[in-house]
């Protein structure tokens, strides 16, 4: 693809037929594929093992022990995966608060990935809790320990995923209802109007809450004190955790979108992707700068040159994030999508290593302590990630999530008109086919 890409580079602007103008479902592909079935099987295995875990306790199913009280369910599925799923926060702030208007075309992807990452993370948080039935205290605010970072995380994360994030994900669902049956249209439009009137309050909460709990995730390890290696333990942990979440989620949203475009053969809007890459690289440089300045000021930089696993993890993290940022930077002007994709992957992996370190890789409760996840633990963790991926596949194939040029919408309309004419019999498009003038459908006279 490189020669083609290079020739395309010379044209400064993006061809208009590549511009993302509308979210279009991935039509013409079956939902049930071998890969999808694998995901379902993984999820089923995880559910069965979860039932076993609830009866047997945490010890028999996990590698957790007295020294490492937290395993990958918390430290990977919650701390790392929700950082990847902070797209609704980071991309949203860029689009709505800083008004980078091009990023609006990525918003539905961001909202969906966020919702799935948070939902699966929260499910696993409930499974990881030893006494989950006591979660009902969450409805009595006067019983909260307001100064506990963990209370902040648990309460704020559940509220965020269940209210603002869920509400923000309603428009694609309502849109599908609108197209599904013309008789539903008046009530759907009524709901939409109500939704739009509360949107500023919902969207603002959707930025405040993740800002609070993504930073509190970092604050969790402040109380662990010196048991976290000095390269990671810093009063700036909350800020650094939040910063890592922003660039990781940009990588997740833009990278996933690119991957989807590749798989389902959609055009890539390089104007939008350039904008995202531009923001991501500055986020990474800013984050890495703060991280290094903080280490230098605390005088912990010497430990980075010790010949041990902590130094290795640190350099792995630094090289992947900064390498990713450099790749992104170089891909912006040349429109080399392979470099850009690799840049997103590398920087996200670096961020994941960072978010995973204070609780696990760089956590040293005592010299003899060891933690390695047990097989069941890994299977459950994978199963809940598989659940999220499966949910994603269903959603992009049934809802208008993935951005595309305008002609894809018309293609989809003709696809359904000619391949599935029976849809008309169900009253699917009473006022004409979609892809034709849909405003007429609103006002038939």
């Amino acid at each position, binding site marked *: 693809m490189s020669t083609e890409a290079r020739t395309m580079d010379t044209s400064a602007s993006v061809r208009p037929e590549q511009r993302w103008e509308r979210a279009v479902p991935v039509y013409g592909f079956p939902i049930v594929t071998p890969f999808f079935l694998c995901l379902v099987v993984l999820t089923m295995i995880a559910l069965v093992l979860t039932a076993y875990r609830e009866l047997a306790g945490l010890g028999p199913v996990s590698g957790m022990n007295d020294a490492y009280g937290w395993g990958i369910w918390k430290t990977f599925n919650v701390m790392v995966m929700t950082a990847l799923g902070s797209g609704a926060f980071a991309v949203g702030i860029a689009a709505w608060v800083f*008004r980078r208007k091009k990023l609006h075309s990525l918003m539905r992807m961001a909202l969906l990935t966020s919702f799935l990452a948070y939902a699966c993370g929260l499910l696993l948080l409930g499974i990881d809790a030893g006494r989950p039935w006591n979660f009902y205290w969450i409805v009595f605010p006067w019983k909260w320990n307001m100064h506990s970072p963990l209370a902040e995380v648990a309460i704020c994360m559940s509220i965020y995923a269940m209210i603002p994030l869920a509400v923000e994900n309603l428009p694609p669902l309502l849109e599908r209802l609108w197209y599904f049956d013309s008789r539903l249209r008046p009530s759907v439009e009524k709901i939409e109007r109500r939704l739009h009137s509360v949107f500023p309050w919902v969207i603002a909460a959707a930025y405040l809450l993740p800002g609070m709990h993504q930073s509190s995730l970092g604050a969790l390890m402040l109380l662990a004190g010196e048991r976290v290696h000095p390269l990671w333990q810093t009063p700036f942990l909350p800020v650094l955790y939040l910063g890592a979440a922003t660039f990781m989620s940009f990588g997740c949203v833009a990278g996933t979108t690119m991957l989807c475009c590749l798989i389902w053969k959609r055009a890539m809007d390089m104007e939008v992707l350039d904008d995202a890459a531009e923001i991501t690289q500055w986020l990474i440089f800013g984050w890495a700068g703060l991280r290094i300045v903080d280490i230098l000021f605390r005088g912990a930089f010497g430990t980075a040159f010790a010949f041990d696993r902590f130094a290795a993890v640190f350099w792995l993290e630094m090289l992947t994030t900064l390498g990713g940022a450099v790749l992104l930077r170089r891909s912006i002007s040349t429109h080399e999508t392979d470099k850009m994709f690799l840049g997103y992957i590398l920087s996200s992996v670096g961020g994941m290593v960072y978010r995973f370190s204070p609780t696990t890789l760089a956590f040293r409760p005592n010299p003899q302590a060891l933690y390695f996840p047990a097989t069941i633990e890994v299977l459950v963790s994978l199963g809940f990630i598989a659940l999220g991926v499966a949910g994603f596949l269903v959603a992009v194939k049934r809802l208008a999530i993935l951005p595309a040029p305008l002609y894809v919408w018309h293609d989809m309309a003709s696809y359904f008109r000619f391949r599935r004419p029976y849809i008309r019999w169900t009253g699917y498009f009473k006022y004409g086919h979609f892809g034709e003038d849909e405003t007429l459908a609103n006002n038939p006279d």
Partner: protein
Amino acid sequence: MAITRRELITTIAKTGGTAAVAVTVGTQALHAETVPIPSAAVGLLYDATICIGCKACVAACAEANDTPPDTRVDGLHQSPTDLNELTRNVIKLYKPTDGTPASFVKRQCMHCLDPACAAGCPFQALSKDPQSGIVTWTADKCIGCRYCTITCPYHIPRFQWQGYNPRVTKCELCNHRLEKGLKPGCTSVCPTGAVIFGPRTVLLTEAKRRLKENPGRYAENKVYGETDNGGTQSLYLSHVPFEKLGLPELGEESVPARTLRWQRRFYQYFALPAVLYIGLVQIIRNSLKGHEEEAHERERQTGLRAQL
């Protein structure tokens, strides 16, 4: 003319912002940061120089708390290797290979004046009694998150890894015995008086008397727990460095006060988040207006329903 909603929100954001920043930064010390010594603080004084390591206290502790003896090492003797879900109190031996003096150490909850476990506990399952200062665990409030095992600088609370109804085990200073006028199990059986029970002030005076009467006998010539980690109610005297006994050097400020200062200030009265929220609403209200107009413009151009 009546004030518009926009003006109202902007005014709230401006005045509230100043006030919130003032509350966050200007407050000298938050209520949560000041460490009051409970009015009737009780505690233990353990003197490692007197302890003979007979482990009578380990057995007495299990008996007093009605826990089955931990015989998992050899299936015969009650010999816990460390604190665990059956063991609230354990005697360990520090024996260096370089010929310097060895020492026994009794490990149980320190009952910190500002306990990190309670500071981190999301629903106050671990709480400090305002009178006696005993840190207790309440089964009804614990969600089993195990954050206490991460936060405790002395690594005391232990989680039960087996079973569907796990519990957190830690020394609660036999508060059920104290109610009956009895002493904690460990102090009631100690044959040498290495561990004694009493009000914290009395214990502190006694410890200082021993330091004064036996110069050179005790390491660092100090009582561990007088000020360490903001002060603890279990006090230690030792002839070997405290760090070797698992009592780390934590400074005079308690761990929660030192590490959560900014976290606590940010959330004080929820002032700063509330102001941030109002400001965000205002910005997004404006963005949304422009965005909706553009969407409807595109709807007119393309004839396709607007996607917001």
